[in-house]
């Protein structure tokens, strides 16, 4: 198992470098300019000076290699220094965002909590709703509950979050004043009051995202449960005199979870990528918002770093999914 993981990790490295190069070229070739939002009154010479100050004058491969060095050498060194108090990275140029002229990783670190709390929590809640719904719809296949579940998840799937999010805001923030429409990223949970404030501001975005995730995962769960309910070992469990609860929630569930867990694991990188539209709608300035504003501003180092981290996560979670399969299913063991 360890070997398997190791091999996959090692194989992933050249591939990730290749991915990063593709992304770099893609960004390089796509139109737009980091100085795009400058007023038109700025003379061309000034603009050219600014471009050079951003390091845009060099050939693309030099910048790419520089970025690779910064990503794989300077940044890790810097964090190492940060933790141990050493000074290896002093004087080395970190990856700097064009837009804010600050180290990209610092901004990402700043954004991570928001994204993780809101998007991550909504994913958890989505999973937590999806599993029981999936289990119940499969156990009572073709019942009204099952039919309704199918209907709602299809509708949920076909409505964009820019629509459902605004509906929720209009109803619960504007009309009922129950929840705020804007997420306050500066809120620090200190006491009960601020905790409640945090909960209140998370309700709407989390709901929107959780429903969206739940719609999909519940479908998978249902299919998987149906597969397993017909298996022979279920009959064995019943023949042993186990109650339906034990049969369904122990025997069938554990088996059904195997494929679903991998689906869930593969959905996780999306959490880090952020839910761009929802973050936009609720002004949760998380990673999704960071990515989209950086793309608009053609903030190359930021976009490159973010997408590359995202790529790493995708590759990593694919690996995790493979390994989880082995952990959950004793039949599959990697030598």
């Amino acid at each position, binding site marked *: 198992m360890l070997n398997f993981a190791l091999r996959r990790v090692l194989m992933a490295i050249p591939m990730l470098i290749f991915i990063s190069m593709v992304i770099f070229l893609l960004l390089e*070739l796509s139109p737009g300019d980091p100085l795009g939002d400058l007023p038109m009154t700025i003379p061309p010479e000034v603009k050219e000076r600014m471009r050079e100050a951003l390091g845009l004058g060099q050939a693309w491969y030099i910048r790419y290699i520089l970025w690779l060095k910064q990503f794989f050498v300077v940044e890790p060194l810097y964090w190492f220094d940060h933790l141990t108090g050493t000074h290896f990275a002093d004087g080395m140029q970190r990856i700097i965002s064009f837009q804010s002229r600050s180290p990209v990783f610092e901004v990402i670190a700043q954004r991570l909590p928001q994204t993780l709390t809101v998007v991550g929590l909504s994913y958890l809640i989505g999973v937590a709703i999806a599993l029981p719904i999936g289990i119940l719809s499969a156990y009572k296949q073709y019942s009204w509950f099952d039919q309704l579940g199918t209907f709602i998840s*299809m*509708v949920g799937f076909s409505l*964009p979050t820019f629509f459902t999010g605004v509906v929720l805001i209009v109803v619960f923030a504007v009309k009922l004043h129950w929840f705020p429409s804007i997420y306050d990223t500066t809120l620090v949970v200190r006491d009960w009051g601020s905790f409640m404030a945090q909960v209140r501001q998370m309700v709407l975005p989390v709901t929107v995202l959780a429903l969206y995730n739940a719609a999909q995962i519940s479908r998978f769960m249902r299919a998987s449960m149906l597969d397993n309910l017909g298996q022979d070992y279920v009959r064995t469990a019943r023949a042993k005199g186990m109650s339906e609860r034990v049969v369904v929630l122990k025997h069938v569930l554990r088996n059904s979870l195997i494929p679903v867990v991998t689906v869930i694991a593969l959905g996780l990188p999306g959490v880090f990528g952020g839910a761009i539209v929802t973050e936009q709608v609720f002004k949760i300035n998380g990673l999704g918002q960071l990515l989209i504003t950086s793309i608009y501003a053609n903030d190359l180092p930021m976009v490159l770093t973010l997408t590359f981290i*995202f790529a790493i996560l995708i590759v990593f979670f694919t690996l995790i999914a493979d390994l989880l399969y082995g952990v959950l299913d004793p039949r599959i063991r990697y030598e």
Partner: protein
Amino acid sequence: MHEATAQVRAHALDEAETVAASAGGGAAILPPDAPVRLARPRSQWRDVWDQFRHHKGAMIALVIFTLIVLFVLIGPSLWHIDATHVDIRARNKGFSAAHPLGTDQLGRDMLARLMVGGRVSLAVGLTAMLIAITLGALIGVLSGFFRRLDGPLMRVTELFLALPLLPLLLLMVTLFREPLSKHFGPALGIFLLIVTAIGATSWMQAARIVRGEVLGVKEREFVLAARSIGTPNARIISRHVLPNVMSPIMVAGALGIASAIITESVLSFLGLGFPPDFPTWGRLLYDAVDQMQMYPWRVILPGIFISLTVLCVNYVGDGLRDALDPRIRGR
């Protein structure tokens, strides 16, 4: 019930006779004067349709879907108001005889816009979905079937999953908008651009699912049987593998239509979509979101059309899946 018994009996008799014939010795196997009947196998599509008709949900969905298609195809030739005609005096009107579904902020007729918009949305949804699942199925099948391709193709899939969509789209539009417009005219050119853009960025899920499924089907004995006959791989895939992985492809397709319609609206929102005088459902929905409180029907109507289409496609897909599966069909 008598009928049922009669059938069983007839069946059993058939059976008894043929078996008796075969058991009866060499001579009985090939009657010398056996007329070679050249009756052509009956059309399978008839069976498929017969089964499909019995799926209640699918039939209702098919009827609604047909209605929607008729609405967008024939509608504009019956309802003569131009979808892009601006009538300032009739802005923001509610339901009325002149404008049965009201008008928008420029006084354009909503009914006409929904009809014309539906054409584009449906065309985009269906075509993009087709491209995505064709691509997904192709890659999935290749990587599931050929061990050596599996690694590289799955890495390519991961690569596509990791690509930032927006810059990619911007790049595609920049590179191809003009040549395509020149070749196919602005509307068709952009249509092609959009459907390939959506298709090219949404096949990955389907590819993964199909691959998993192919890995299973590949191990089934009938594939080995085909190999023992000497069927080349290409035909093993087309004849034996593909038909047996149809159902996940259908599911992916149904979901694909929904996401293609939505993606199209996001593209318009980003300026990568159709020219602004080209209404689409996604765009109508997006445009009206800000005014949702004052003119809720302007959001609800396109929303209903999108959801209805997706639901219908999903149920039709369900029905088709059952109908295409002879095992279920036989029941």
